[in-house]
């Protein structure tokens, strides 16, 4: 079964501070991992996917198969990063989401 765990429901940091949103997964197959973001009053949208290995809006995420983790990181948080972040695990049949972490970046 596919399972995604985001241990932090809420995360609050100050502007300019590093931020890390944790995600752990459970899946017997080859994992496809994503981070989706929902800004206030906007629809859910893709932030990044592990296969792209790219940095989006300063965020990066590395797939660690040994630790079954896909943590999202940004070295210097900005106020506009405040949003709800969902880690998601994809497969051939469905996309499974974690419970989400609400990130607040304080000025």
């Amino acid at each position, binding site marked *: 079964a596919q399972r*995604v765990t985001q241990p932090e*429901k809420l995360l609050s940091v100050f502007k300019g501070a590093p931020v890390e949103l944790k995600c752990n997964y459970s899946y017997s197959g080859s994992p*496809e991992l*994503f981070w*989706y973001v929902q800004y206030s009053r906007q*629809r*859910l*949208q*893709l932030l990044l*996917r*592990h*296969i792209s290995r790219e940095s989006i809006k300063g965020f990066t995420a590395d797939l660690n198969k040994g630790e079954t983790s896909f943590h999202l990181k940004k070295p210097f948080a900005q106020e506009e990063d405040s949003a709800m972040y*969902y880690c*998601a695990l*994809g*497969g*051939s*049949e*469905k*996309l*499974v*989401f*974690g*419970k*989400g972490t609400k990130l607040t970046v304080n000025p």
Partner: protein
Amino acid sequence: SAVISQKPSRDICQRGTSLTIQCQVDSQVTMMFWYRQQPGQSLTLIATANQGSEATYESGFVIDKFPISRPNLTFSTLTVSNLSPEDSSIYLCSVNPLGLGLNTEAFFGQGTRLTVV
């Protein structure tokens, strides 16, 4: 990419009634997905809707409670029947235009916020 129009955006319904949510996509897609997002909870997949066949429901969701129609490749409806306050939630429509299992992007509607009184 895909642009999804979902309506209504919100509704307040009496218990015992039903609400039908519509989802229109600007391109043809094979599968459409319906999710429920309860307060403080994750997005939970309700069912996958394929054109020309019955929807596939996830564990805990049944067709009698959540009937789905998929008349063509750009449109689907989800009905939430016999409403109770526990059905108060946000319902989301989603598509993967390039298919699942290929590390492709999912697109979402803006959601329908249902309140049952």
